[in-house]
């Protein structure tokens, strides 16, 4: 069973709305993959650094937040772009 005949029967306005929603989902979902992995790596390494040297926890925490901020920026660009797509 093909999807195209079903799509062709729909009202074009509704179809555009639906496809826009799908596009937004893909944009944000795609943008969130890399930063998700990246933040995991940043925080994981920060935790092992803190566990090895608890006395340097303060410095590591500051650097960790910086690393998260830089990594997270890409996901946030995706979030904003999801609203701009077909805005």
């Amino acid at each position: 069973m093909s999807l195209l005949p079903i799509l062709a029967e729909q009202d074009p306005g509704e179809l555009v709305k639906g496809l826009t929603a799908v596009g937004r989902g893909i944009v944000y979902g795609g943008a969130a993959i890399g930063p998700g992995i990246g933040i995991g790596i940043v925080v994981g390494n920060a935790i092992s650094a803190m566990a090895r040297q608890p006395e340097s926890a303060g410095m590591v925490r500051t650097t960790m937040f910086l690393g998260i901020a830089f990594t997270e920026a890409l996901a946030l660009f995706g979030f904003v772009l999801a609203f701009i797509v077909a805005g």
Partner: protein
Amino acid sequence: MILGLEFPPISHLIEWPDIFLKDTSFAVNKVVLIMWVSALLAIVLFVLGSRKRALVPTGVQNVAESIIDFVDNSIVMETIGPDGRKFTPFLTTLFTFILFCNLWEVIPFVQMPANARMAMPMTFSLLVWLIFNVVGIAKQGFFHYFKGIMFPPGVPKPIYILVTPIELVSTIIVRPLSLAVRLFANMLAGHLVLVTFAVISAALWVKGVNLVILPFSFVLLVALTGFEVLVSFLQAFIFTILAAVYIGGAMHPEH
């Protein structure tokens, strides 16, 4: 309409009708009022805090001194160093103002972070962009500053073809853009998440069909409100510390 749930369009959540000076460029709406009140609160906090100057701080003075101490110790000293102390007043102002603007997100009957509109984060980040570029040019001289940006030391010569455009674009364009978008998108996302769970809770309460699952969405709403307080602090902190890192990078070039 999703499963009988009417979710308001996004323009209803962040666009507010004008109150004064309607239909002009200087129209005043809820976000502008929030910004004014935040600025006023920050001014009152520091004026009241610096009036008595007791040796052992109490009350308002204690709060004001802890904020300054926090910015001085964990932002300026960690990123710029002792000669960055002259930026402590600017960074403290930035931190306090952004924090107060963010915290309106969870205060009942207001519940709108002023930073969820692009205008304010953009102004902050343009200010930071101007300051770190001016500081870099004043400290190192125009050509030396741009040479430091475009030709970072310790890179093999042929790689400069690749590195120079990337570094130039990332310093001049991506830095202010990501600084503004980070604050804006975090506050907007937090606002939307809170609205989503509030709408779900309200719809379940009104319809009364699913009183079994209502507690879950309501508990999550309360928990996320607490989380958003944390995010407000964190975003104010991150914005300030990144501003400090950029200023520090302009003051102390790599050798």
